[in-house]
């Protein structure tokens, strides 16, 4: 593997019926990421279950309950590497009752793979998956039109589905959509080019994943540095050292930059950007570094260092698209802990503006209850200002979670509008 190879994270939403597990199994198998002992285990299970040949879907089996029920419940992460890239798959269940798991898997993905059964075309579930991908602002969507073998590899069937999908995605905020006709079962256009669809001029799935341009997905304009902790070594050599440890959320910081610390508003200049290996001249997302400033100012966890000429909004009133993740519905006027970058504050849901029916994508302003898997636009009031950007501009400084203080559970995830 080359030293400059990148990491690409993608999510696949779907159920067993879509061939999602078969697709993942096929990617792992054809890219030779499956080990012999795993293959032997799968072969013996396939035999036990009376399948013909090896059932590739079994590679994605997880916990005991999932194996017994033959379903995916939770997000599972899988890994494979090719000579061009390292891949992380967030494998998520596709049914409506698992919307929260899809949202979770989508939150860190560069690419969403949406599976469409060539026989059925775009269905409610497809719409839902596309909506979640756009809500979570996954930069690239690959629509895999699967089971092409069952529609005689027909170009017309493919074209129909492409236009069906385009008619729904045109109403959503998605930047880059591509279509690939595949048969996960037979391997057509997954790793190897299909011999049955000469009419398809594009690349197979793996080649697409290996070569798509992802380095400009990160916001390089708005320099944001949430402070995680303050490093004050108790040693002779570093007696006066005061470093602010964190990971660059977006943008680029350079030595000598004029910076403002929020929310206090104090200004200073970057004196050094330090790593274990020594000083660096610049730091960009997602580098973990420690920053020192020219002036002694009071900075602690939860503060944000930004470039003085480009600041986020500091606000106690924020509007977010909120996905409810917990079995217990939201309690009216209840207080929650809101977590935003390294900042924790108390917050209250002041108003539910509308709820989205994720099958029809229609807004409902009547039903104001927030139950598990609901996606709504809400107004939140926090006790102290948060330094926010819109989620569309910045996936790190535009995202929040809510924690229920009575259970400590993570109950909701939100994207700043």
């Amino acid at each position: 593997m080359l030293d400059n190879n990148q990491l690409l994270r993608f999510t696949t939403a779907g159920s067993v019926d879509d061939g999602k597990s078969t697709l993942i199994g096929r990617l792992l198998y054809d890219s030779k990421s499956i080990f012999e002992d795993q293959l032997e285990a799968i072969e013996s299970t396939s035999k036990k279950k009376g399948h013909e040949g090896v059932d590739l879907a079994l590679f994605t089996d997880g916990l005991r309950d999932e194996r017994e029920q033959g379903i995916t419940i939770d997000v599972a992460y899988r890994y494979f590497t090719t000579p061009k890239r390292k891949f992380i798959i967030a494998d998520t269940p596709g049914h409506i009752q698992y919307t929260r798991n899809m949202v979770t898997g989508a939150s860190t993905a560069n690419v969403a793979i949406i599976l469409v059964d060539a026989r059925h075309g775009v269905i409610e579930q497809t719409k839902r998956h596309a909506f979640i991908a756009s809500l979570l602002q996954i930069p690239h969507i690959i629509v895999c039109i699967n089971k092409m073998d069952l529609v005689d590899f027909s170009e017309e069937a493919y074209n129909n589905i492409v236009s069906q999908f385009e008619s729904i995605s045109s109403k959503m905020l998605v930047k880059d959509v591509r279509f690939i006709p595949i048969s996960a079962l037979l391997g057509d256009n997954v790793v190897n080019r299909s011999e049955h669809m000469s009419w398809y001029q594009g690349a197979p799935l793996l080649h697409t994943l290996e070569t798509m341009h992802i380095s400009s997905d990160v916001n390089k304009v708005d320099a944001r540095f949430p402070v995680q902790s303050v490093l004050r070594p108790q040693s002779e050599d570093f007696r006066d050292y005061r470093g602010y440890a964190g990971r660059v959320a977006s943008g680029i910081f350079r030595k000598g930059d004029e910076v403002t610390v929020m929310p206090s508003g104090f200004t200073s200049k970057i004196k050094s950007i330090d790593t274990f290996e020594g000083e660096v001249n610049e730091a960009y997302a997602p580098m973990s570094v420690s920053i020192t400033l020219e002036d002694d100012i009071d900075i602690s966890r939860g503060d944000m260092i930004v470039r003085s000429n480009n600041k986020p909004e500091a606000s106690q009133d924020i509007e977010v698209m909120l996905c409810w993740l917990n079995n217990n519905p939201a309690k009216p006027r209840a207080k929650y802990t809101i977590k935003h970058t390294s900042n924790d504050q108390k917050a209250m849901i002041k108003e539910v503006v509308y709820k989205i029916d994720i099958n029809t994508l229609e807004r409902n302003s009547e039903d104001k209850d927030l139950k598990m898997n609901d996606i709504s636009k809400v107004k939140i009031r926090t006790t102290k200002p948060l330094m926010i950007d819109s989620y569309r501009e910045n996936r790190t400084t535009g995202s929040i979670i809510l924690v229920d203080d009575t259970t400590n559970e993570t109950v909701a995830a939100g994207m700043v509008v």
Partner: protein
Amino acid sequence: MSKYYLNYLDELESEAIFVLREVWAQFENPVILFSGGKDSIVVTHLARKAFYPSKIPFSLMHVDTGHNFPETIQFRDNLIKELGANLIVGSVQESIDQGRVAEEKGKNATRNALQITTLLDAIEANKIDCAIGGGRRDEEKARAKERFFSHRDDFGQWDPKNQRPELWNIFNGKHFEGEHFRAFPISNWTEMDVWNYIKRENISIPSLYFAHEREVVWRSNSWIPKSEFLILDEGEEVVTKKIRFRTLGDITITGGIESDADTVEKIATEVAAMRQTERGNRSDDKRSESAMEDRKREGYF
């Protein structure tokens, strides 16, 4: 292509450092679970980087089964000295002597499962609210479902069906008295990533990972080292082989593979060509299809 992106290894490193800093910020008394194996060594190395120029702010905790490779213990002690870190040892022998656990019987007896009690006792006795581990999601199917911040109830148990959702890089470590967390900074690394990183960073690892001559017995498809704890079965024969270990656990359950790889470069090349998973040589995982899940539910590493 712009130069403002990280390669995969730098991105994994940065993610792990971010997680370690979150642990430090969110917990009162976190420790690193240190087994002397390559994964916990890499986590310790990352912790050193995360807090530089400060000293590593975590104690290292070792659950000592008494069935160690002597090389591992020596490596551990040297590293502790070098870091100037504090070492906490939880002893399985003591748990047995106190009657907290009973030794397994028979030829395949190990102390692997007994560690759970010792580990949870040590966590409680030392008021530890977060134990950082070197677990990776690629290791095993139950681990594939792990969070970076993984909640344990006041019995130390993991409830895989009721885990907190983990979105973006916002980690929720809030917990009640008596509960604790496990944190896995290298969740997203594979075995190959770990070796490439060890190679790149020039991290020292125990000599056991390198090919060496050793007296071994062929059992369950791997070379089990001869030790004072090994009970020979009829027909089993001790032979001398050039082997190395791919993972390090107890001397009683860790099988070696035949190899000539005596440098990190050679090991990395060998691992890249391997057709067996790394835990295939660990008899603790072979007991049943859900052996790892069952142990993890009870509080295993």
